């Protein structure tokens, strides 16, 4: 369809051939008031809780124990987790009553298993955003995209040290424009919908529960 391409582009170009980009008006963003770290953290937590996420503050040493407790409370006995990721060893400290499954397989070969036989998954996160209560997932070969998407319960480990005031600040400071991964996702709560009579319901297609393990030391 190169003709479509050429037709569209030439139509558009003929309209702006004299455009002088230097004359474009200056764009001004809103200056949000500066917030202390504790205010940002509070904002982050409030947003997530309002969006029905569960927040558990803990130390790194407690990760295994807390995951064990939370799974037990849900009568879940197995957990899918990533290989070689930042928190792999911490996750492996969970109780032996939990069957730990490493995501060391190709998704296409194990779709059914992931959809039907994987009640919970755990991932780390790259960073987080205070202004909107968002967690940034940056999937890797070790922690694939579906690990945070398909299991109905998603544990996500967030280090409060990685909190940024806003999405804009984050993009700029981490220079995202230079290199983005295959997929990056901002998650701000469990899956939800208000498509039936504006009534909120959780667990539409993605995880029904988002459990945030918040490291704050």
């Amino acid at each position, binding site marked *: *369809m*190169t003709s*479509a391409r050429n037709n*569209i*582009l030439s*139509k*558009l170009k003929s*309209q*702006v051939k004299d*455009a002088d980009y230097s004359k*474009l008006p200056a*764009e*001004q*963003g*809103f200056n*949000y008031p500066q917030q202390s770290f504790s205010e940002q953290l509070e904002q982050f937590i409030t947003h997530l809780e309002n*969006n029905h996420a569960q927040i558990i503050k803990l130390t790194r040493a407690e990760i295994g124990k807390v995951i064990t407790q939370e799974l037990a409370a849900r009568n879940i006995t197995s957990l899918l987790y990533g290989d070689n990721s930042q928190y792999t060893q911490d996750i492996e400290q969970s109780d032996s009553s939990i069957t730990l499954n490493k995501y060391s397989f*190709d*998704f*296409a070969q194990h*779709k059914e298993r992931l*959809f039907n036989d994987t009640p919970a998954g755990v991932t780390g996160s790259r960073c987080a955003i205070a*202004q*909107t*209560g*968002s967690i940034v997932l940056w999937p890797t*070969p070790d922690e*694939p*995209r*579906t690990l945070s*998407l398909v299991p109905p319960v998603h544990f996500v480990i967030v280090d409060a040290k990685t909190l940024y005031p806003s*999405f804009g600040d984050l*993009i*700029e400071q981490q220079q*995202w*424009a230079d290199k*983005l*991964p*295959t*997929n990056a*996702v*901002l*998650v*701000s*709560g*469990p*899956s*939800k*919908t*208000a*498509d*039936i*009579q*504006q*009534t909120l*319901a959780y*667990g*539409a*297609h*993605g995880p029904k529960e988002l459990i945030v393990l918040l490291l704050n030391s």
Partner: protein
Amino acid sequence: MSVDQVNPNDESKYAASARAFRDNVSRDLANDELRSNFRGAMDYLVDKRKTALSDSDELETLREQCKLIKQRCLVKLPHLLEALEEKLTANGIKVHWAETITEANEIIAEIIESKNGKTVVKGKSMVSEETALNDHLESRDIECLESDMGEYIVQLAKEHPSHIIMPAIHQNKKQVADLFAKNIEGFEHTTDVDALIQQGRNVLRDKFCNADVGVSGVNFAVAETGTLCLVENEGNGRMCTTVPDLHIAITGIEKVVEHLSDVPPLLSLLTRSATGQAISTYFNMISHPRQQDEKDGPGEVHLVLLDNGRSQMYSDDELRQTLQCIRCGACMNHCPVYTRIGGHAYGTVYPGPIGKIVSPHMLGLEATTNLPTASSLCGACGEVCPVKIPIPKLLLRLRQESVKPKGAPQVMKGQGSGRKTSEAFIWSVWSMIHKQPLFYRTSMWFATRLRFLMPKKLGAWTVARSAPKLAPKTLHERIKEREQAAKGK
């Protein structure tokens, strides 16, 4: 393919339903349940937005910023599209261009067939509604299932979305329950929304797991990084773009933004204007197909860029502002007409105020001649638009195009088709009277003196109102008398 096999009518099926606007309106105004569903839904959304955008300084600064971002991206549009294509291609995403909806559908069908795809799961995409993609794929024996809960409901009901953000807003939970009962095997009857959603979820998870292809829309396509951004709450968008091995995204050419840093302000106003959310549950950014060593994600990703009337909007400085739209739906949520007649009456893919200014370019002014006039120009839409599209002004402009005399320079498809000789005559007489003061005063003198002749019935006006009564004397006369009396004192 021989000429005979080509659909002779390249016109969208929506042209016919837009032509039936007046009948659609009568039908839907008479439906009390529908009207109460819309009123309730709009009140809810208006309230949500108001809460989320309570700081008017922030709101107005962001609106101005977002308007300028979109206007910059539009001035640079052809170059950004080329940059986007180059970057996406370098990232391994294949780019396709379509001038018409038929071309777009054909491109998508061919991609799917080349991979022997039989089943498609679709994330919410208004552009694919615009092309009527589902119908086209079905005609090629490809099953196409909507996966957004609202879209799924609408598809089961064999309807179209009545709102661009909340497609099934015209139905209440009881109606959805009845619909599920008819269509979902083993449905356990309930009107509990949680339980309804869970049953929908179960059906659709199975489909996600087994589908060959995922089709999605795009909210922002970032030229700088070659990234497709999707805004959603349910996770179906992530499913469609992650689980099947083939992902095809379709979007309008106006969705390209220059920089990644353009996204945060637009995203912030988009979700807050639409549903009052600080951000959607998921903001999904896709920059590559599955790369080496990755264990999941589609092996192939395609982007189809659709024109379908957009280059026509682009060809006029004023009308170009239509392309600033980021599809938040706030204009319809605040529209007193939309609130009354609902989304289906428009007959177009995009209903409400934005639909009235977009559809005439997509379907031509002849099919949509009733849309720009079906507004009291109250201005609520323009007031809330996050990118400051002057919607009332554009409605006026389309009214002008609609009644333009023959021989005027060509601006858009179907211009002048709304011009009626009788109406044009009335306005020319009106103008003649009002531009000549003496003639005007004399006419008004006679009108007020002959007021006993004024009919009690004045067409559509007196269906629900009493006719206004002419005064015994005009204001002009009374002031003159008053002045003379003062002089006489």
